[in-house]
């Protein structure tokens, strides 16, 4: 009788081993391929209201807009700025205009010319930008501005090497006016372009 006792542990061994054998026999491998699409996102203020009360020697108002870009493209992204117009970068109020700053991104104008407007981005080109907004102050001898280029030739504000998450760029705008400038509501449109590298 004793000689058959081995059957009990053998039975249990079989009981536990069998399912794993069956499972391993039934196992097959599946390769899962997931394609993650590349995306790029941009957001900014949408509008920037600048009001200036002119003075005899010229008063300056500065304000900022923040552009935020995210992309999962490993090529990184480029952010560009231009005026939306192909023909003029003036601030326009009927037949009256405020001209863009004569300075360029590489060599911006300082101090800002009276009756002009422009942009400034810290760390880009030769800019020296404000850090706080101000309204109708004496024209700063420190802040430098460049005119927005026409739509055909946008300026590059930033080019990154790889993916980016909520990467912000603060764009400062400055406008100056003296009392010779007719009152009115002057407008212009600026385009921020975000594109993968």
């Amino acid at each position, binding site marked *: 009788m004793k000689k058959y006792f081995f059957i009990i542990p053998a039975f249990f061994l079989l009981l536990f081993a069998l399912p794993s054998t069956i499972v391993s026999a039934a196992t097959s491998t599946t390769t899962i391929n997931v394609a993650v699409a590349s995306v790029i996102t941009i957001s900014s*203020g949408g509008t920037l209201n600048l009001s200036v009360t002119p003075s005899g020697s010229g008063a300056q108002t500065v304000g900022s*807009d923040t552009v935020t870009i995210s992309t999962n493209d490993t090529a990184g992204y480029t952010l560009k700025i231009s005026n939306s117009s192909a023909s003029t970068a003036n601030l326009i109020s009927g037949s009256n205009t405020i001209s863009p700053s004569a300075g360029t991104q590489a060599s911006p104008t300082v101090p800002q010319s009276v009756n002009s407007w422009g942009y400034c981005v810290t760390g880009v080109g030769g800019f020296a930008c404000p850090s706080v907004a101000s309204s109708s102050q004496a024209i700063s001898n420190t802040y430098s501005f460049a005119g927005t280029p026409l739509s055909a030739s946008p300026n590059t504000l930033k080019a990154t*090497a*790889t993916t980016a998450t909520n990467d912000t760029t603060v764009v400062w705008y400055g406008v100056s006016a003296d009392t010779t400038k007719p009152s009115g509501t*002057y407008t212009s449109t600026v385009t921020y372009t975000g594109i993968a590298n």
Partner: protein
Amino acid sequence: MDILLKRKITRGGFFVLICLSFLLLLPKVFAQSATLQQSLTLSPTSNIQSFDKGASSDGTVQVINQGSAAYDFSVYATPYSVSGEDYQQDFSPIPGAINIASWFNFPSATYHINPGQTVAVPYTINVPSTVLSGGYYGVIFAEIQNPQVVNGVTIKDRLGSIFYLTVNGPAVNQGSLLSWDTKPFQKPNLTGYVRVANTGTLHFSASVNATVKDMFGFTKLNFSSVKEVLPQTVRRIPIEWKNTPFMGLYKINGSVTYLGKTSTLGTKYVIVMSQLARYIIGGIAILLVLMLIIHEIAKYRRNKKKKKHGPNKKKKK
């Protein structure tokens, strides 16, 4: 009398409660209106397609509104070209070159999108049968159409999806790794550059992989970037470690894969030191030199004093 007083108190309390509720709710309402934000998302960021001459293809780009404000947006195509090794992108037609913007057709030029919505913008690409084989490049832009502001600057955000199109036919796929450079002594961020040349007639992808390790052998950065190199251009591809620590000694190596071959980027050592770290180390160095000078002066004076008083002491003895 007491009941009347109680009623007055209750009414007064109720009035105060309403006022408080208004005060508490008002900022929330203002905050909600203040945080209404436009957000434009475009996918994919680039598209690589091949065509036979005279063929056409339909596709879509996805425009997603992840913001809290609805808006209209326009779609249009432009040509795409680059200049310089840093690939300054240009979207203007080049005189004398084929403007592939005319190959793109959209059923509608403008769309409306609500918060949280995705709009699939369909397009058709028609490749002329008369075109030569080779690479052609364009961009589909999605641009927010904001109403003009009354006073100031209206901002328009736009995003581009680059199209790398190949028109099938005889083509030359040829390129090389020109150089791999990094300055041995840098300020943060740690940066290196790989220059890849395309000497063929078609674009190709260059996949750059790099690893940055510290002096103990710990991996600090695994960098990976895939970039298209256009025909007859040299592309300078940056390898950048964002938020590099202010000081350290690092080892960089990696590889570039293009046109089915892999080139190894030889190991380079870089010392990174921020301006502040340079000031601190410079200050410590100056301090040490000053201390050394002071010590030498004191030593000289002591010796001089010894020499001066030496004979007197002997005399006293």
